[in-house]
């Protein structure tokens, strides 16, 4: 209790006493002539009453003082000389020192607030529901060849939660003008020893870097052409993947996987057609990173995806090899405001492709082993927490027409209104040598994130 409370208690008691005295039925002089002795007797009674009140107040003050931590001891008031003819009031008995049992006090306080704690800790049937986020990605595009369009690219629901002490799971459900698709739905182990994790279900296979990004997460508006052509867009795969972080001082992560196929838009193989185990697509990836300084680091990854001959769909063997390099500069004290990312990826598609279309004269399909090369490189600067200009260069060969090559150059500018809202302006100059074709494209992308979000190690 605050010491000022003592003053208030004293005032209240004194006021109550005053009211009591004022309201006391003093005898009316007209009715009864009071004698001196009677008056004195009444006065003595009032004095005694006052003395008792004063004693009570002192005891209360002492109690308050003892309960108030850090209050210096109050010096005892000097003894008041008694009125002549009145015996000095007996000194009030000393209040015994009060011992505060901290445990008891804590128990009492907890007992008092327990109903509120219980109310706050109630469980609900929906309490274990997964975290949910929703992303809207929309683009206005204008192209010399394809005219203009307001393109609703996707509305994407992302949900994630722990399954139990041994696994977590997540799903990405994507609605586009073409329909609704489960883009990812995967289970990831969390309790395996020795640095292993196993992932199963539908997910983006760990091939390269940007093929594992969803469209709205890309640093520019469109996925690089080489990833569209060689991977099939996002590296979506139905299968299983084992990842291992080597217990070495150097960061070394290895991934091996087996899948029906890799690539959401890879139509060489159909996910729904069963095949021999030996006809799956197999992947291996090595990822390492080096810190050149506190602010400068480089990530290097090598990936290889091999698909043997898949007899029931007539697919001949195919191997896609990729190398990715990412240089990141982020000054420690200004990481949110300054820095750059220089990311590059190069892929070789080695594939046995159908050659000349069969005719009546030559009914056998002729296959040819072909190689195609492609890559991209982009540089994005961070000028402030909001402004990220960048430029993307792309080059890709056509696997079926090796002489046909496409180049693209795309300067872009991203404005982050906040971490959850982004506007991006991009211009792309596209050139293909055979058949000769050029195009100028403009894009304005507007992306927002609602609800749950996570900063992933991959997106850093």
């Amino acid at each position, binding site marked *: 209790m605050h010491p000022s409370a003592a003053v208030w208690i004293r005032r209240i008691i004194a006021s109550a006493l005053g009211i009591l005295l004022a309201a006391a039925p003093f005898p009316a002089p007209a009715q009864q002539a009071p004698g001196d002795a009677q008056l004195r007797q009444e006065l003595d009674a009032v004095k005694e009453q006052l003395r008792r009140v004063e004693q009570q107040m002192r005891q209360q003050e002492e109690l308050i003082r003892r309960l108030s931590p850090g209050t210096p001891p109050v010096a005892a008031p000097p003894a008041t000389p008694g009125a002549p003819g009145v015996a000095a009031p007996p000194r009030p008995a000393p209040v015994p020192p009060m011992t505060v049992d901290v445990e008891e006090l804590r128990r009492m306080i907890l007992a008092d607030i327990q109903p509120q704690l219980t109310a706050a800790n109630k469980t609900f049937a929906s309490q274990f529901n997964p975290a949910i986020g929703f992303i809207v990605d929309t683009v206005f595009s204008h192209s010399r060849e394809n005219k203009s369009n307001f393109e609703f690219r996707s509305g994407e629901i992302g949900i994630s939660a722990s399954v139990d002490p041994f696994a977590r799971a997540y799903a990405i459900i994507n609605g586009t003008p073409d329909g609704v698709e489960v883009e990812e739905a995967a289970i990831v182990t969390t309790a395996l020893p020795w640095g292993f*994790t196993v992932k199963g279900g539908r997910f983006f296979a760990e091939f390269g870097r940007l093929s594992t990004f969803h469209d709205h997460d890309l640093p520019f508006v469109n996925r690089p052409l080489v990833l569209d052509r060689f991977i099939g867009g996002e590296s979506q795969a139905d299968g299983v993947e084992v990842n291992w972080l080597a217990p070495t001082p150097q960061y070394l992560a290895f991934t091996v996987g087996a899948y029906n196929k890799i690539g959401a838009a890879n139509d060489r193989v159909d996910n729904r057609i069963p095949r021999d185990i030996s006809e799956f697509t197999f992947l291996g990836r090595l990822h390492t990173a080096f810190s050149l300084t506190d602010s400068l680091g480089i990530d290097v990854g090598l990936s290889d995806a091999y698909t043997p001959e898949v007899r029931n769909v007539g697919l001949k063997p195919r191997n896609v090899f990729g190398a990715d390099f990412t240089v990141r500069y982020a000054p420690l004290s200004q*990481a949110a405001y300054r820095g750059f990312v220089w990311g590059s990826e190069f892929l070789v598609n080695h594939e046995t492709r159908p050659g000349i279309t069969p005719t009546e004269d030559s009914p056998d399909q002729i296959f040819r082993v072909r190689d195609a090369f492609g890559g991209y490189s982009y540089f994005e600067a961070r000028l402030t927490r909001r402004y990220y200009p960048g430029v993307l260069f792309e080059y890709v060969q056509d696997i079926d027409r090796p002489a046909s090559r496409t180049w693209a150059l795309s300067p872009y500018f991203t404005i982050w209104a906040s971490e959850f809202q982004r506007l991006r302006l991009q211009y792309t100059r596209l050139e293909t040598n055979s058949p000769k074709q050029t195009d100028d494209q403009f894009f304005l992308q507007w992306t927002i994130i609602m609800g749950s979000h996570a900063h992933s190690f991959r997106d850093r």
Partner: protein
Amino acid sequence: MRRLLLVLLAIVALLPADAGAAKKIQVVTTIPDLADMTRKVAGDLADVSSIATGVEDIHAVPMKPKFAVLLNRADVVILMGLEAEHAFLPALLDASRNPKIRRDAPGYIDTSVYVPVLEVPSRLDRSLGDQHPMGNPHINLDPVRGKSMVRAIADGLARNFPEHASTFQKNAAAYTKELDAAIARWQQEAAPLKGKKLVSYHPDLIYFVERFGLEAFGTIEMRPGIDPTPSHVADLIERMRQAKVEIVVRERHYPAGLAETVAKATGAKLVELPAMVGGVPEADNYIAFIDYNIRALVKAATGG
């Protein structure tokens, strides 16, 4: 593909064998403040590393693969909590593949558990900013709350290594006593700061101002994590002029230009402060860190 497998096998063969020697407790903390406290509590029993060096913004510590390696070997991870490390720790814990230190595992030691939290939002809405959903997490700026963090470290280590519990508690008590003496001294030294109004770039000084009797007038950021708009800055300057705010604090990981502009426009004194141990070379431990901040502010407040 075969080449990749060969490389993998070669690396497995080169892995260092476990020497089997008596192993120290491997502790990784998110910030150097916690590393300093943990060294005081664990003494020689632990090897302590910090992810941040102290110059970073705790809401934007760059994630580096070497941190995943560090966390992979950790017996415990010690963090400030209250989602302060949201931008980097959850992802690094995932990448570390270490079940011992996953969120809410015994090795996940949250030092905010005994701390009374300020600015707990009455409702969660991103229009109010996104960086402090569980209340203001910058508890390391208040040395009294620092004592509660020390207690959480000692209890957390004791939970994981009960055989050393008495050592942790004894060391924590000794360090707490040291902090008590420093707090009494700081209360005296900070006397000239009483009642001074202060604007900071980010709302990370509220525990400090509450402890030492200043008044947090506002922030240059619009909301925690949201950069200011020109109208917000103009409004802030106007209100600061009317209220005669005397101090503008730029936490050293925020841009200098805007803080200078605000200070110049209002006639307030600009003070540059670290927000963590290691933010300036002089603040190389927790007591030196609070020392530095108090002295810098007192110097500004007294016209030094």
